[in-house]
């Protein structure tokens, strides 16, 4: 098989470089508020790209990804002032990945809608366990004092967003990724042609948890306050899925577009009409599912193809 020309990857690398330049400019010249918006955007990008690496490609919709985010946050706050920050972040990612392997091993045998509600149940299960642990430790919310600056966190989150994007990009074009796509198409057939679906799913599921864990750790530094009911909130899981629907979860630009769209919409509306923002979001979600199921990215691609003809 011919090696794909390097030039095929140029658009992707180019876009990545442009994003890095834009981020650098933001750090240097942006005001605090702009940087915080940037941080939020990068956070969602990192979360959704990681989610899409598993759920987008395999079709197994995880509605409990908040659990990895929460676990990462918990590792960070527990290790606060015991571990150096960078170690805490890495550990957060690894623990989240380990939890994913642990939870995934029995769960990935379950298919379709069962898997969806199972992931939700698992996230809530872990959440209440952490609530109990904190209660047993006599802890009622944890306050972190002396956390890194906004721009430092922005830089770290940028790394995660870039990493998650590269991972999805590479995965999608790799053999492992093809295995997942085959599972999405027809799992039984995939098994029949010799793909070890169980291992493929588990591996990528574990992988898809690492960056969300690190994101959770970083955000706990941003919020400086940890409370399990909030950090494991199902809203995070639902927002990830919403962004994936809006933007498309098939390839790299999808989550990026979805996250940008959501953050832009949010900024536009929450200041002036907060309830309206949520209502509009709901309407958009419904409309996209019915009329643009491949998301913004999918629509853009089909228009492109239409034009090319």
């Amino acid at each position, binding site marked *: 098989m011919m090696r794909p020309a390097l030039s095929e990857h140029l658009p992707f690398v180019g876009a990545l470089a442009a994003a890095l330049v834009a981020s650098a400019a933001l750090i240097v010249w942006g005001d605090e508020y702009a940087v915080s918006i940037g941080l939020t955007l990068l956070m969602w990008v990192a979360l959704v790209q990681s989610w899409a690496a598993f759920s987008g490609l395999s*079709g197994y919709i995880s509605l409990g990804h908040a659990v990895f985010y929460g676990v990462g946050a918990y590792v960070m706050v527990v290790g606060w002032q015991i571990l150096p920050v960078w170690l805490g972040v890495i550990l957060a990612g690894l623990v989240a990945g380990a939890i994913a392997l642990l939870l995934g091993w029995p769960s990935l045998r379950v298919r379709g809608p069962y898997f969806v509600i199972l992931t939700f149940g698992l996230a*809530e299960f872990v959440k209440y366990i952490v609530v109990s642990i904190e209660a047993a430790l006599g802890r009622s919310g944890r306050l972190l004092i002396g956390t890194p600056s906004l721009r430092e966190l922005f830089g770290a989150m940028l790394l995660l967003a870039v990493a998650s994007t590269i991972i999805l990009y590479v995965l999608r074009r790799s053999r492992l990724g093809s295995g997942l796509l085959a599972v999405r198409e027809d799992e039984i057939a995939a098994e029949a042609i010799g793909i070890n679906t169980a291992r493929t799913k588990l591996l990528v599921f574990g992988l898809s948890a690492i960056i969300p864990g690190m994101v959770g750790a970083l955000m706990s530094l941003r919020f400086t306050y940890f409370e399990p009911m909030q950090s494991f909130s199902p809203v995070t899981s639902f927002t990830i899925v*919403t962004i994936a629907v809006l933007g498309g979860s098939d390839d790299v630009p999808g989550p990026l577009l979805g996250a940008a769209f959501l953050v832009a919409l949010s900024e536009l509306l929450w200041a002036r009409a907060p309830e309206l923002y949520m209502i509009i979001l709901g309407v958009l*979600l419904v409309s996209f599912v019915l009329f643009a199921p491949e998301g913004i990215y999918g629509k853009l691609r089909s228009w492109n193809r239409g034009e090319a003809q």
Partner: protein
Amino acid sequence: MSVLLSGQLLAAALVLAALYALVAMGLNLVYGTMRLLNIAHGELVMLGGYITYWSFTSLGISPLLSMLVAPAVGAGLGVLIYIVLFRRLLRSPKLAARVEANSLLIFFGVSVIFQNVMALFFTSTQRGYVYLDQVIQIGNVAMTANRLILFGVATSACLSCLAFFKYSRAGSAVRAVIQQRDAAALVGVDIDRLNILVFALGFALAALAGVLVSMVQEITPFVGFPFTISAFVIITLGGLGNLFGSLLGALLLAAVEVYGTAVISSSFRSILVYGVFIAVLLIKPQGLLGRAVAAK
């Protein structure tokens, strides 16, 4: 321990089970026949609650009357939502191929819309009213009148539904579709009309549950979600599409909630509930009683 054997605990469990069963039945119907994951189900409960609250406090209409009005409104909404949103979903082969995921997302959007529309109109302040809350003593069991009514209405509604599905023509058609969708279409069941019926009934049951809920607890625009979760846990336990199973599931969940906390500390309640839920999904995903809903 005498606490465990007390009639009071049993009564509490039965009342909770009746409410859960009512909420779960509507959800199970929609899922069983159409495989749509209605995570907006709890919002219909919330709506039923607000209709009752508003009727009672602003118009002086008794909640007993709302038990007829709210389900009618719920049914109407159900039909509307089906025709506007879901017909399209089910008729498009591309969308129908991933019907569970897509319905989940649509219903999620619907629930967000409902919650925030209510928050806009009613504000998020908790609402409550007092109705028939005299405490009635039966032997050594004490229960407020409205909880007894809740038990009575919920149980009758569930049993009527079961009877309807077992003995009526329309009900048999629904059961046929649950078991074998394509075959049912072949023998001439009008799937579209049936879907409308199911949506109307499912939403009506949820709204009725909402009326009952509003009598015994305060409501806010966000009160629906925990009911949705409980309903999903129940229909998973009982088997997706298995209507009788959801009664058992409701009993089980209520028992865990009421008795579980007597045996071990109350703080582990949620862990216990989700733990059982996960265990069932992993070990016997068809539910404790369920026969497998026709696989894709």
